[in-house]
């Protein structure tokens, strides 16, 4: 590596840094927010949670029941933060007009000559020569520094109470077969398009190429009609997991076949010819030679199709019920956007949960993902 410190290099680095920050900030903000306390989240920007911030709070001391008498002097003692860790009092006040009247550790003298003192950790002591009469404690206005604090509460709430846990399972139940089924049937299809001779092969190939770009909107209405008719005919639910699997298989078929065909074309012809001479059937050749050689291609296509299905909203909306036992993550998230639009702790956490699997795949298998994308584009 060369570190050339010239002007254009510095400029390039700064420009790239700018892009990187611009691109990462939205996701980063979501991630941070999902771990914040929901009350904090509603009143302050997520960027304030990363550093120690100054907050103004109102607390109340304990009432007369908590007083103790020591040598004729009455005390009320306690902690303003209920022993919440990390906060530090900077200053405090006894009226709302002057909330910073006293520094921490300074004694405030009230009208009735009683004395209040507040310490840095939130401990306070209220001292009076006569007995405390009021049931309610006194309000104290404090300015404190609050360190970053994070919680997993939002995740518990969203997964168990809002039903995102079930939606997560549903999405897996949709995505795995909807990825594996096209992979299975398209690999046989791509094999026959590459290595078998039959009438209409070129036409079939051309219709695959054409289907690559056909928008799935063109299929929705007729397929929905077919599903409804079939459902009525056999008296079963028209919206079901197998229905979605097949729909995803249909919409992913062209690209899966095309990518596999492109890959299989490049396999050495001699190897397959040799197998043929040895008397292997096409099925043997496919299982013993082509599948092992195609593993890297399978991996790329698996990831592409899996991410596509996982992130899909439209197909899931049209072909699945919105019932909790069928709803998928993206549809659930959209539902929350409507019903809990202001509850950012739920939305940010829900969104992040829906992103966990794609991000895991992305960071662990990025190589295959990129390879699939590049193969699908540069050649196609």
């Amino acid at each position, binding site marked *: 590596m060369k570190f050339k410190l010239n002007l254009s290099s510095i400029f390039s680095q700064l420009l790239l840094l700018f892009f990187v920050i611009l*691109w990462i900030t939205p996701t980063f*903000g979501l991630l941070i927010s999902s771990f914040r306390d929901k009350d904090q989240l509603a009143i302050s920007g997520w960027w304030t949670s990363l550093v120690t911030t100054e907050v103004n709070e109102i607390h109340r001391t304990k009432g007369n029941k908590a007083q103790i008498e020591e040598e004729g002097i009455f005390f009320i003692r306690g902690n303003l933060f209920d022993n919440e860790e990390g906060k530090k009092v900077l200053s405090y006040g006894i009226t709302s007009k002057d909330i910073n009247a006293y520094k921490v550790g300074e004694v405030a003298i009230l009208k009735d000559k009683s004395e209040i003192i507040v310490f840095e950790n939130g401990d306070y002591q209220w001292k009076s020569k006569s007995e405390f009469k009021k049931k309610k404690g006194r309000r104290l206005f404090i300015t404190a520094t609050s360190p970053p604090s994070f919680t997993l509460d939002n995740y518990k709430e969203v997964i168990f109470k809002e039903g995102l846990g079930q939606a997560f399972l549903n999405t897996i139940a949709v995505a795995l*077969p909807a990825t594996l089924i096209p992979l299975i049937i398209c690999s*046989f299809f791509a094999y026959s398009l590459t290595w078998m001779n039959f009438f209409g092969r070129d036409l079939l190939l051309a219709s695959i190429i054409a289907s690559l770009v056909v928008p799935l*909107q063109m299929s929705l209405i007729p397929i929905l009609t077919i599903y409804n008719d079939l459902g009525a005919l056999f008296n079963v639910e028209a919206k079901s997991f197998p229905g979605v699997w097949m729909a995803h298989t249909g919409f992913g078929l062209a690209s899966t076949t095309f990518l596999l065909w492109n890959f299989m074309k490049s396999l050495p012809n001699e190897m397959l010819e040799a197998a043929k001479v040895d008397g292997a059937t096409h099925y043997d050749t496919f299982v013993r030679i082509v599948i092992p050689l195609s593993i890297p291609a399978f991996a790329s296509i698996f990831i592409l199709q899996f991410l596509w299905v996982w992130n899909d909203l439209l197909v899931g909306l049209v072909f699945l019920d919105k019932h909790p036992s069928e709803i998928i993550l993206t549809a659930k*998230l959209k539902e929350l956007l409507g019903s809990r639009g202001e509850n950012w702790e739920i939305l940010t956490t829900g969104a992040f949960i829906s992103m966990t699997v794609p991000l895991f795949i992305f960071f662990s298998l990025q190589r295959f993902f990129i390879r699939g994308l590049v193969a699908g584009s540069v050649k196609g």
Partner: protein
Amino acid sequence: MSFFSLISTVIVGVLFFIIYFGLSNFILDLVCKFKSNSVALENSVRAIIFIAPAFLVLFMFILYPVFETVRLSFFDKFGREFVGWNNYLWALNDPNFRRSILNNLGWLLIVPTLSTFFGLVIANLTDKIWWGTIAKSIIFMPMAISFVGAGVIWKFIYDYRGTGDHQIGLLNAIVVSLGMEPQAWLTISIWNNLFLMAIMIWIQTGLALVIFSAALRGIPNETLEAARIDGASEFRIFWSIIIPFLERTILVIWTIITILVLKVFDIIYAMTNGEWQTEVLANLMYDWMFRGGGDSGRGSVLAFCIMIGVIPILVWNLYRHRQEQKNEI
């Protein structure tokens, strides 16, 4: 459904296809052992076994629906009575449809252009810088996120609180810190489309970036070195060598993003549902598929309008495919 019944449904679904291929080929082998006289017949039966499932799916989910949708666009809302051009005439007079066409055109002009542009610029930047790979990963990451997830991320950025309140949306916080009034970004007609497009650009730049990065590696180093020795500036090299070399790649990326943008649905549906004049064709179509029990005629017209947009690309792809086939022979 419980966890275990989910798992078993999944396994049964996948096994079904494995067993189909295994069993049918096994039976064929068995039959051929006894009557091994016709290799040609065996081969054609096997071809049918290999092709049948994929072909049936292709036919049922793509080929047939394409023609059926075109047919339905000339029928009434239940698909029963022929109504001629009525659905098309309705569309031409519908303000939402016109708004969708304009918005889709806006998306088509802006999103592919900016995504490709940013992708190209960033690919060139990351190529030369030692931490370029990390930068690439970060900018590519939104590609893994769903449009709805991205919608939540950006809705949070665009969040609006009244003047004087603490802004928790990043964009408004910046605007306020610069001393300006906070805005409810997604409701500002016309401009709100740009804020929605920003999401798509944010996602698709990553795609352009990785494809350009792969293509950039194909540029012969000698050419670049020669240009540098001749004293060409980096800008000149970019403009006169790199851009012409990547011409084909630029075109490919452009078409991929164009097709995607024509179908844009999730972002609009999740963020505004077409309100404040952000309607697009795909969202309008989804609306008509279910509004008032569903109108298959109008829905089909809208689907067909999206299809019209991809037809030039479809023809071009077929033409290129034919050229390639010819070259191979």
